[in-house]
């Protein structure tokens, strides 16, 4: 009796990986999904922070995709290991701080390792939803063999959506899958994928604009670079990644920046950091919570209080009382005049 062949699929939560798995299922392949959480993934968190995002769907698309397909999904925390990918990408960055090619290689490599660690002989090959020419940096005809080789997956990496444009892989050569029934998609045009989705009856799938993570976002990347510059070292922790998504970031001096909440949800989120950072907020008027990241001299307290007061209801008042809470110290209140809009310089905004 021939056993069913098994594949592990990289699931990002987007349409392409959804389709890639479905194409395999059509051919009788048993699939399980794996999703890597780098800390920068579009899936998750921010929706928990801002008020206005509350109404948006809160689903995690990787989980949603797995449920649509009826497959298991393993989510793997790769936050620590991913630092090396982001900090020293051998193949460089894309338009922003996204090291897409190194990231792809890393994920396929991790999938290979994960299979080895968790199953003695279960999985026969790996699939991804990659499409040639879909993304300018990582999904080109030249990059496909680089990903296969450098990840160590070699000929057990199959891309069902563009396989016909690529050399045959082991699953095809061995007859586990029928190459004729695979696809030859290429280019940025998404119509073929949409047509296939319709054919399979998939609706409401996610269509992230830039990529699968925040590193493709210019504003986010700028904040990350600013953080490294401010600290004089290219390091980050999970909290830093999160905080880059929260609030307005204002760096009035090289040594420190202010993170000022934009709504009550963000204020509440920042409250969670009170034990680690100096926080401040207006007490005579309604206003946002702000925190200070970096080294601040107490001489600068009045100055930053003036900036923060400018974002509260006391912005036009002659005097606003601002309370500072320092970790492990008594609170301190200062009376200041809020800065005017012009005094909060444009170039301070990160």
């Amino acid at each position, binding site marked *: 009796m021939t056993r069913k062949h098994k594949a592990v699929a990289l699931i990002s939560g987007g349409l392409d990986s959804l389709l890639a798995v479905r194409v395999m299922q059509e051919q009788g392949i048993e699939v399980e999904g794996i999703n890597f*959480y780098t800390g920068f993934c579009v899936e*998750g968190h921010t929706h928990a922070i801002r008020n206005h995002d509350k109404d948006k769907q809160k689903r*995690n698309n990787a989980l949603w995709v*797995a449920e649509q397909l009826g497959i*298991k*999904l*393993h*989510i793997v925390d790769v936050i620590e290991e991913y630092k090396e990918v982001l900090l020293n990408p051998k193949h460089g960055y894309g338009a922003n701080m996204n090291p897409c090619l190194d990231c792809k290689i890393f994920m396929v490599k991790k999938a290979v390792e994960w299979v080895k660690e968790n199953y003695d002989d279960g999985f026969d090959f790996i699939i991804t939803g990659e499409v040639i020419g879909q993304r300018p940096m990582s999904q080109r005809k030249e990059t496909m063999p680089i990903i296969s080789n450098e990840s160590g997956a070699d000929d057990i990496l199959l891309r069902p959506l563009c396989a016909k444009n690529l050399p045959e892989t082991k699953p095809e050569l061995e007859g586990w899958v029928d190459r004729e029934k695979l696809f030859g998609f290429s280019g940025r045009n998404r119509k073929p994928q949409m047509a296939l989705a319709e054919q399979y009856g998939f609706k409401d799938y996610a269509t992230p604009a830039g990529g699968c993570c925040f590193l493709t976002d210019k504003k986010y990347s700028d904040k990350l670079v600013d953080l490294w510059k401010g600290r004089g070292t290219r390091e980050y922790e999970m909290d830093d990644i999160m905080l880059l998504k929260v609030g307005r970031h204002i760096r009035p001096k090289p040594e420190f920046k202010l993170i000022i909440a934009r709504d009550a949800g963000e204020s509440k989120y920042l409250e*969670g950091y009170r034990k680690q950072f100096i926080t401040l907020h207006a007490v005579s008027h309604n206003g946002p919570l702000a925190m200070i990241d970096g080294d601040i001299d107490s001489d600068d307290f009045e100055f930053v209080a003036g900036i923060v007061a400018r974002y509260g209801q006391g912005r036009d008042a002659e005097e606003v009382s601002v309370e500072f809470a320092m970790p492990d110290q008594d609170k301190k209140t200062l009376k200041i005049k809020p800065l005017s809009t012009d005094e909060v310089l444009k170039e301070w905004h990160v």
Partner: protein
Amino acid sequence: MSHHELDARRMLCPMPVIKTQNKIKELQDGDILDVICTDPGALSDIPAWARINGHEIVGHREVDDELIITVRVVI
């Protein structure tokens, strides 16, 4: 059959899901796990994860600002 608790307070999704998944790997069939979280997103993500992987959601309750999701392990 035993009762366990997982502290996922202040973690943002998908971290509570990842922690739940990893914790359940150590548990036995029929064990009960209370996941305590503060990210409301967990209320959709943890049940979705449980459905996919065949575990059972017994229920959830809110205590102050915290959310307690109870999962029964099915292996």
